[in-house]
């Protein structure tokens, strides 16, 4: 019999060398050195709260489609010459540009970025094509069950809040005009309140200097403001969205969650892990490893600027849809009413602390974290405080968090699947409200 080795003493979270400056145009620049691979990652965050998602989405697809100096092909060519790429994405809170290039290309990438920020041209032919392409991609996405389940859940839990529709309608996308893009660009693609994050193989002060050189000429102030808080979850019957002939059902459950700055955040993160937030959790061990009902059930806490929630996700064969719901309600109820075992908490705690290290271990990972935090006014050293709160959380704290947030009576539940085959059994467990797709 071989004996499992103990863990060696753990090493502390190291915060990487960084520099930060606020430019006179209101742009915040954060440069973080991680000198492993000879590359640079770039992220630029601009507030977007309250604006039109269809116009914004077409803007993300055409921002790099031409400037006052260059065509779409020339911009792509110039970026590739330094091994680079830039792209834009959108959600109801922010417009984001992401890119990377060889470390020697940072200055050139910033120059091209500035050119587009200052003088994106939105040429008519490119806009006409890209809005069709985007509409087609949305149409394809809408045939994915995961997309449909998420969209249906968002409509239900967010009601009239902008989070209700995170992807615009294909028909609305097709109607977007060049003028609308130029107006939105003038309003939103502005430095004031924006944050640029650079991570890579450089001296952080030099990287900030490069950003100052290239982006100081960018000017203007967009509307400040953030979205109103998300509405509270209103539990009700399980929504059954019909997807005729589906061989699998998609279960989604939303539960309330503590916001990132709440003292409940760290204990609830641990409670979520114990429930279903990582592989050796109760839910995964039950419905996957014991019952074989589902391949990758998972629960996670989503912190969005306007509100946080816990989201349970599982796909299972149509014939075991009701059994999965039974086990899910059981595991939620058990954690909401009975304190977790000490060993369960220690295991979840180690995982949560390790995840902080893993999240900080690549240039792309650091850039993603830093820009997400910056959107909430936080900086990476926040992780050190969060690590301390994870370390300090007791069984009582975690039990209290689970009891407060994870009771299945508070859940908003939805199943997307073949109604005729799953409705009767689901209705034996909870009230069911069927709706068409």
């Amino acid at each position: 019999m071989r004996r499992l080795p103990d863990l060696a003493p753990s090493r502390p979270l190291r915060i990487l060398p960084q520099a930060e400056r606020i430019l006179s145009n209101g742009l915040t620049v954060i440069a973080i050195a991680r000198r492993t691979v000879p590359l640079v990652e770039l992220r630029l965050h601009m507030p977007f709260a309250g604006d039109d998602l269809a116009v914004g989405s077409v803007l993300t697809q055409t921002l790099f489609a031409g400037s006052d100096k260059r065509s779409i092909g020339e911009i792509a060519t110039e970026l590739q010459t330094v091994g680079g790429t830039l792209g834009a994405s959108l959600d109801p809170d922010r417009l984001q540009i992401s890119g990377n290039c060889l470390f020697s290309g940072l200055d050139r990438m910033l120059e091209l970025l500035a050119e587009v920020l200052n003088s994106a041209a939105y040429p008519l032919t490119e806009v006409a094509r890209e809005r069709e392409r985007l509409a087609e991609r949305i149409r394809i996405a809408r045939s994915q069950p995961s997309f449909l389940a998420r969209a249906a859940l968002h409509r239900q839990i967010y009601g009239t809040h902008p989070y209700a529709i995170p992807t615009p309608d294909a028909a609305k996308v097709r109607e977007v005009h060049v003028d609308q893009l130029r107006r939105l660009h003038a309003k939103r693609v502005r430095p004031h309140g924006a944050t640029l994050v650079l991570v890579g193989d450089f001296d952080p002060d030099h990287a900030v200097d490069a950003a100052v050189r290239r982006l100081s000429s960018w000017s203007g102030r967009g509307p400040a403001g953030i979205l109103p808080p998300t509405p509270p979850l209103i539990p009700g019957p399980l929504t059954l969205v019909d997807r005729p002939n589906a061989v699998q059902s998609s279960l989604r459950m939303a539960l309330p969650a503590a916001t990132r700055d709440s003292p409940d955040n760290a204990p609830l993160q641990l409670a979520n892990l114990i429930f279903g937030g990582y592989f050796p959790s109760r839910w995964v061990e039950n419905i996957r490893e014991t019952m074989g009902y589902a391949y990758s059930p998972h629960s996670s806490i989503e912190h969005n600027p306007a509100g946080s929630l816990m989201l349970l996700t599982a796909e299972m064969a149509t014939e075991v849809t009701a059994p999965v719901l039974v086990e899910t309600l059981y595991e939620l109820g058990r954690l909401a009413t009975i304190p977790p075992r000490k060993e369960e908490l220690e295991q979840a705690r180690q995982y949560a602390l390790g995840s902080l290290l893993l999240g900080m271990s690549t240039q792309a990972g650091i850039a993603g974290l830093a820009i997400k935090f910056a959107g909430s006014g936080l900086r990476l050293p926040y992780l050190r405080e969060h690590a301390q709160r994870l370390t300090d959380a007791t069984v009582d704290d975690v039990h209290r968090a689970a009891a407060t947030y994870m009771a299945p009576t508070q859940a908003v539940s939805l199943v997307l699947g073949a109604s005729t085959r799953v409705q009767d059994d689901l209705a034996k467990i909870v009230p069911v409200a069927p709706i068409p797709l």
Partner: protein
Amino acid sequence: MIPRTDYHIERFTLANGLRVVLNRDASVPLVGVAVVYDVGVRSEPPGRTGFAHLFEHLMFQGSANLEKLAHFRYVQGAGGTFNGSTHLDYTDYFQTVPSNALERMMFLEADRMGAPLLTEENLRNQIDVVKEEIRVNVLNRPYGGFPWLKLPPVLFDTFPNAHDGYGSFADLEAATVEDATEFFQRFYASGNAVLSIAGDFDTDEAQTLVEKHFGAIPARPAAARSLFAEPDPTNANHTDYVDQLAPAPAVAAAWRVPDPIGQFGQYLACVVLAEVLTDGEASRLVRRLVRKERMVSSVGGYLGFMGDPFDVRHPTALVLQAYLNPDESAEEVLNVIDEELTRLAMDGLTNSELTRISNRIATNLLRSTDAVISRAVRMGVLELQRANPGLINDLPQLIGAVTVEDVQSAAALFPPHSRASIAVRPQISR
């Protein structure tokens, strides 16, 4: 212009035949531990499609000194993550953990290399899980298995190369514990594996720990490796099928390519060619198919059916795929692809076009090895297939050394008459 990494790599072989690769990198307080076995989809026997992948699941179900679920608990309870994946020519198992858990990871990997727990109950449970995985990734979604499961049978004739690596439900359900035991005996020998570790450790100490945990595993030589070569197709081959869930048509084409190992130079030119054709707005096929003709909403190209050009042996393929705009014809798209390949073969490309493409490939290669575990897996596979893990340092500059003449010659390797293609037709045409 293309920079070079300088990962320091140690290689050695234990008395039982296990090859070991170490890359010390103290820049992160983590280690990535990977074990790569020289067995994949192409090695599974007829009547047992999907078995290599099913067996990968069984390797997480406990071992001589570890009960079911212990692996997950010990890895994630140490703050780490784990996974495994089954490829055409290898199967990998890997963990990323804070570096204080290095020895524990070695214990876990050595324990299952010695003796996994292969029970009827675990087998039945994991058959159910794998069937759910196939439902999620293939049966319950549009374009499921396109093109990676649908195209090989059109390009290849022999069972190892052509069959569905996810497996049929009938074959999965027919699997027995005896099959698993036999599969383990044959393919999961210490002599058929590479242990690869990257990250924050002391090299001498790591060597001692490797010896301590893996040295005691009884020596079993590697089974003679099958060669899967088959003659190149002499005619174009096309099929199409209806995907009831797909909202729009799609098409994919594949051609056989030079041996990724035996004809590495020519193969690298094909890697570059795939990106010349499809990487970014300025690439040949995006310019033509997306922007000029507006026939497709997206087009992609790569080597190997699973998307990684440097983890596959001969025979393999250049794959091009496109999602068509409604009412566009797959045949027309294939014609345009042929025209663009012919144009490249006849007229070549400029140095500046080649340079920017090489630089972009280099960025992607460098980026993909930033995470210690991706680096460990890549080095492990390079050791397994090429006995050269140091190639990881050379690859970006080798890509940069491919010339315009090389790419021009490569383009001539893909004529319409040796092409395999498939078209996806939506159920209801608009």
